[in-house]
């Protein structure tokens, strides 16, 4: 892992410093996710140094209709990250995937031309990064409000896991990062078979009717497994599940209530971050009634 240890202003504890690529939606529709990440990082002795002047990765649009663009847009960010010389942490699954795809493409070309390898740090998705043993042990030590009795399904979505040739993930069909994290936070992780099933977020604007089918299936499966909420690490999944709950409830003629909570929000809650409630208040499906009922707020 390429990171630098530095000391905070008071010189009291050592901080791990890594580069951070937030991605476009964390400046907008996922402002709640961004706030919770900024909130919990210092609690985990982590310094997230935002890449200066980063640009959009091109997302689904670029790889769907212009392959070259889908490699060159993230490549500019890779160059910025290389200059910074540290590992790069990415909270958005889609950005993570596109950055990794561009990195693999560069590696492939370099191998084709010379024996050159990569010289940058590792690209991490935020969930994998924060569920390393070192962070989990900090969490154990700093836990002030165990999330006892909170039954949650981990919903990983697609692109942090798949395809393994791009993501370098070993457990891409059955990842367990959320489950390990929830155990440390003393919540109750519920096993289910739809952890990495697609919610169709990329089609949310153009074909919301298709999204309804996919999302309803996820809600039904999560409820059947006995879950009270989803835990997510992808803001596309979050927005897609959170924003469509009202619509699918109306269509199905029943009242779905399953909040869609970012794992960083749960970390903040469990570590007693004073602003955790304000992050949760920004969801469309308000998680606070559930958390109050469980005595966690």
């Amino acid at each position, binding site marked *: 892992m390429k990171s630098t240890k530095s000391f905070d202003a008071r010189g009291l504890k050592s901080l791990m410093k890594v580069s951070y690529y937030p991605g476009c*939606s964390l*400046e907008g529709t*996922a402002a709640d996710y961004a706030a919770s990440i900024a909130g919990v990082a210092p609690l985990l002795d982590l310094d997230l140094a935002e890449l200066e*002047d980063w640009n959009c990765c091109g997302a689904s649009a670029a790889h769907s209709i*212009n*392959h070259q663009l889908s490699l060159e847009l993230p490549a500019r960010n890779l160059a910025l990250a290389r200059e910074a010389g540290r590992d790069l942490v990415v909270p958005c699954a889609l950005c993570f995937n596109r950055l990794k795809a561009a990195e693999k493409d560069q590696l492939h070309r370099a191998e084709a031309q010379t024996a050159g390898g990569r010289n940058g740090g590792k690209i991490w998705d935020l969930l994998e990064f924060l569920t390393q043993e070192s962070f989990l042990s900090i969490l154990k030590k700093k836990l002030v409000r165990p999330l006892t009795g909170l039954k949650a399904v981990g919903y990983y979505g697609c692109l942090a896991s798949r395809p393994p040739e791009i993501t370098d993930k070993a457990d*891409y069909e059955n990842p367990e990062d959320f489950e390990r994290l929830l155990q440390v936070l003393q919540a109750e992780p519920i096993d289910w078979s739809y952890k990495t099933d697609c919610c169709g977020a990329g089609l949310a*604007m*153009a074909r919301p009717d298709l999204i309804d089918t996919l999302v309803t299936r996820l809600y039904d499966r999560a409820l059947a497994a006995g879950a009270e909420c989803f835990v997510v690490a992808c803001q596309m999944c979050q927005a897609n599940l959170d924003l469509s709950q009202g619509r699918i409830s109306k269509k199905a003629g029943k009242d779905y209530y399953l909040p869609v909570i970012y794992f960083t929000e749960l970390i903040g809650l469990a570590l007693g971050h004073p602003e955790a409630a304000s992050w949760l208040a920004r969801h469309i499906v308000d998680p606070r009634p559930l958390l109050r009922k469980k005595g966690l707020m």
Partner: protein
Amino acid sequence: MEINISQPLVPAFGLQERVGKEAAIPLSACFQCKKCSAGCPLSFAMDLLPDRVIRLALLGQTDMLLGCRTIWVCASCVTCTTRCPNGIDIAGVMDWLKEEAIRQGKAVDQPEVAAFQRFFLDSLRRAGGRLPEMALMRNFTLFKLRRRPDLKELWENAKLGWALFKRGRLRPIGPPALKGRDEINKIFRRAGA
């Protein structure tokens, strides 16, 4: 597009070779196990199941593929690619076909999906490197309205937009242009986008 493949097909050559050369995807490795179609979450919305797309590509049925619905309702979840025992990037084939359909100026089966991708890239370029989410939503909504005025959907979306705005999740002013705006423009020009 209405697709009828009960009629005998006339195989053509060249498509498989092009996909192999341009996208480095070995279509001929397919042995039709249909794992791609079995795991596809969007199969319910497709006119051709993913295994058929591969088979028809091997048979050189370019027009049928460029005009089909499947490539545009594919959500790019990459389950097919991940599970293919022969290392065929099926989702990559979908992308290649989409790009080719646009390059050839074909009438696409899902103009709204194609337009969304176009609006996304245009908004991103115009804003100077980062995506202005609100401008994209507004422009795409107007485009949809012109095609197919659905006031109920508009009302529902407006309510959702307001709910996001109240929660500070919709920025009325887009992100500032980057210092590297010129580089971004160059990247777009080079890619012909």
